């Protein structure tokens, strides 16, 4: 334990402001689905120390998002390659959150680790309590409001979008958006999606319709 602590990676330089700034960005991302939110410097400060041994065991935006959303009452399930002891110990130390045994509530994964089994395991909530539906946080390879080579172009419509909004997402499995589309008719049950990449965050809540992909 003491040895693990000696090699513990850094968290927010200023936990209060880091979490507040990140929360503001996440709030903006949820309110305007598909719009990219750049994380504030106050949030990324401390998460990118010069000393490589101090860097968090995941990307900056993913680290900031988890440090902001998790606490002792909010466990998260770390799927695939993220589910290693170092990442678990890091989250436990900085947030006090225990890791959930399965993908029922908050679920975190790297883009390449999202598979159909994970999607099927996600809790959609019930018609009486849709708020208990899962939140899926995925670290993707590329995220842009303009078309990108090698990225899937999405056209989003729904609450928070005036007409339509374009979002290009790279690195997810080919069937990812088909699995997401299958849930659209289940509203208000569903899964809220948070996509992170570098220091950027975008959200696709369950109310957003994905109309076309090229």
């Amino acid at each position: 334990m003491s040895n693990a602590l000696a090699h513990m990676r850094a968290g927010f330089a200023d936990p209060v402001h880091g979490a507040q700034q990140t929360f503001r960005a996440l709030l903006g991302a949820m309110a305007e689905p598909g719009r990219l939110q750049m994380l504030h410097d106050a949030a990324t400060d401390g998460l990118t120390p010069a000393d490589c041994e101090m860097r968090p065991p995941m990307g900056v935006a993913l680290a900031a998002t988890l440090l902001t959303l998790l606490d002792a009452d909010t466990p998260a399930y770390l799927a695939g390659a993220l589910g290693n002891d170092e990442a678990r110990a890091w989250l436990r130390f900085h947030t006090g959150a225990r890791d959930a045994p399965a993908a029922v509530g908050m679920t975190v994964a790297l883009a390449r680790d999202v598979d159909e089994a994970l999607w099927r395991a996600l809790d959609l909530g019930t018609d009486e309590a849709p708020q208990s539906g899962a939140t899926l946080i995925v670290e993707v390879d590329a995220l842009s409001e303009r078309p990108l080579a090698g990225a899937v172009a999405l056209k989003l419509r729904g609450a928070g979008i005036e007409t339509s909004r374009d979002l290009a997402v790279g690195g997810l499995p080919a069937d990812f958006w088909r699995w997401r589309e299958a849930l659209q008719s289940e509203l208000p049950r569903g899964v809220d999606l948070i996509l992170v990449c570098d220091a950027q965050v975008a959200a696709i809540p369950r109310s957003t319709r994905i109309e076309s992909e090229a």
Partner: protein
Amino acid sequence: MTKDDQDTPQQQARRHWLAVLAHAPRELLERHAAGLADDVFTRLRAPEIGLTMVRARIGNQGDRFNVGDATVTRCVVRHRAADGRLTAGIGYVLGRDEARAEWIAQIDALLQQPARHDALMREVIAPLAAETARRHAAAAALTASSRVSFDTLASETTP
């Protein structure tokens, strides 16, 4: 609530010095911490103030009950020795004194460095332990002077 039986000697030793540091008076701790100015520490967890629930048993037996909340300040720092060895020190103190928690964390980190351990035990922990023992003895002596013994004759019916 100690679990001395299951712990390694290192854990018991560390528990001892952390207890000594947590009970040490502020002025003495400050003087010893000032001597560490040459050492560089990284804050893993900046000093933060929180609440903890203190629980107890009446007469040290029976069911546990909640005595009340107590303010606790905690801090974690990391120290890298000249030979590259990393140690993490933790400091927990009752109350809202952030500097005290950080000094304790720093001394704890250094105490885990083999190169510094013996000197620090001799120069910091031993005097602090002696000072705490002296204060406890003085308080005990003060109380003992007004001690009343309730001696009663045992009833014949109860063995």
